[in-house]
């Protein structure tokens, strides 16, 4: 049994236009502290899977448990990072970060201290009073991350968290976020379209088939650098020896999907 357990999960959307089967027979166990990446063709049900784990959608068939308890009871253990930062333009950086605390009536001294420490650590302290439109894309994404982390979730769900950023920012924010998650020992499930990003950040990559999403392949990632040690930062991982091999393998799995159709 893992930290997060998913068994026999099926999910369908019902609309007037008809029924859309989004997920089919998903079985998955995620260890505590693991970084898991999910890749798959567009529309295969990745966001649906994350929404189910987050408890934003109700499960129809199958079970999802976190530390043995159903997700409905564990919502406060889960942090969710969306594709866009969704900072409220009318709130200052720190008030944006307080949003979750306000909602959960958790504005305690300890939380304020934690927030201040995170703002300093991630280079946003000088910008805590300014409105989001004065922040760069990377800063906004970091602010959104602090907003999630200040709630101290045990499991972090990331839905294409970097796709709104330009390539440069994307690499550095990925490094930042990776470092933060590892330092805090968080379990993370990340969806991405970027195979390189999946390999460089995660310990395991799950490849889904096109709709309805099933698990097509699980790939354990072990990277070694020139010196024989694993890479420290995701941005270095691209020069790891096995990188190209993993890239090829995942690429083939994703493409192979088209052949079968």
């Amino acid at each position, binding site marked *: 049994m893992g930290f997060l357990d998913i068994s026999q999960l099926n999910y369908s959307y019902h609309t007037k236009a008809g029924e859309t089967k989004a997920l089919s027979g998903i079985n998955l166990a995620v260890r505590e502290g693991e970084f898991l990446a999910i890749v798959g063709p567009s529309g295969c049900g990745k966001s649906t899977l994350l929404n189910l784990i*987050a408890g*934003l959608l109700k499960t129809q068939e199958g079970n999802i448990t976190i530390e043995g308890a159903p997700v409905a009871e564990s*919502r*406060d253990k*889960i*942090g*969710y990072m*969306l*594709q*866009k930062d*969704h900072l*409220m333009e*009318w709130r200052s950086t720190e008030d944006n970060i307080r*949003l*979750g605390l*306000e*909602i*959960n009536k958790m504005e305690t001294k300890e939380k304020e201290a934690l927030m201040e420490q995170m703002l300093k650590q991630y280079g946003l302290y000088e910008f805590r009073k300014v409105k989001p439109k004065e922040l760069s894309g990377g800063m906004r994404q970091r602010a959104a991350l602090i*907003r999630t982390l200040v*709630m101290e979730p045990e499991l972090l769900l990331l839905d294409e968290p970097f796709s709104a950023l330009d390539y440069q920012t994307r690499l550095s924010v990925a490094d930042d976020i990776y470092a933060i998650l590892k330092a805090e020992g968080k379990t993370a499930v990340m969806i991405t379209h970027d195979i390189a990003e999946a390999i460089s950040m995660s310990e395991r990559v799950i490849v889904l088939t096109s709709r309805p999403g099933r698990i097509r392949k699980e790939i354990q990632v072990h990277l070694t650098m020139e010196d024989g040690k694993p890479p420290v930062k995701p941005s270095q991982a691209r020069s790891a020896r096995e990188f190209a091999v993993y890239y090829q393998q995942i690429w083939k799995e994703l493409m192979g999907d088209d052949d079968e159709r």
Partner: protein
Amino acid sequence: MMMNGKRMLFQNLDRQKEEQGISAAQAAYLAGCRREKRVVRLWQWLIMVLFLGLWELGARTGVIDSFVFSSPSGVVETMITMSKDGSLWYHTGITLAETFVSFLLILFFGIGIAVLLWWNTKLSKILEPYLVMLNSLPKSALAPVFIVWLGANMKTIIVAAVSVAVFGSILTLYHSFSETEEDKLKLIYTLGGGRKEALTKVILPGNIPTVVSLMKVNLGLSLVGVIIGEFLAAKAGLGYLIIYASQVFKLDYVITSIFILCVISVLLYHGIARLEKK
């Protein structure tokens, strides 16, 4: 030496300006803006003076009949007598009070009902066609009905004024609420909030600009509604004064009332515009 000192002085001045963030080109641009503003103002005054002057001249020489068209000096005289006997303040005060009460009621019901509709999607689906119908109905048609139901009094006037703007406000606000980005609401839910938090943290603060621009329109509409109401059902107020004075051919009073209405609408508009800047 002299030259040098002078140049340095200028350089210093330039630098000072630049430190304030103003270069020579920027200063020239700002000067241009000021000049244009002066020209615009000048023309605005010129048009007014010309209009009033010609009107007065026409009335004096008998080119236009001052009995029917009144005259600027007649209006001034009327204003003086009216302010002396207090009727000017009385009628203006009544109209203003009715306008403010209607305006606040429109704001209250507009926001309140829009929130209710946003909260209860089924209710909004059920009520939408009725709201659309009520919104496009010419509200002046309702005024006589209100008189029958409520009597010829201030209640009728306020209800008439509210009816002019409230349905449009509800529809505008409700649509603006529903167009809020779905993912912003999702964010609230991921942070453990419910519909109430979505309302107070996203929907309401995010729609302040819509509310303010709606307030601008509604202030004008409440005044329209109040005047319509006063035409039909009042014993006091500027609308009453206009109707009464026109029936007894006291055109000086009619024009004076209209002039006061002009002043009121300008002042109200600027009041809201100032609020908007904050």
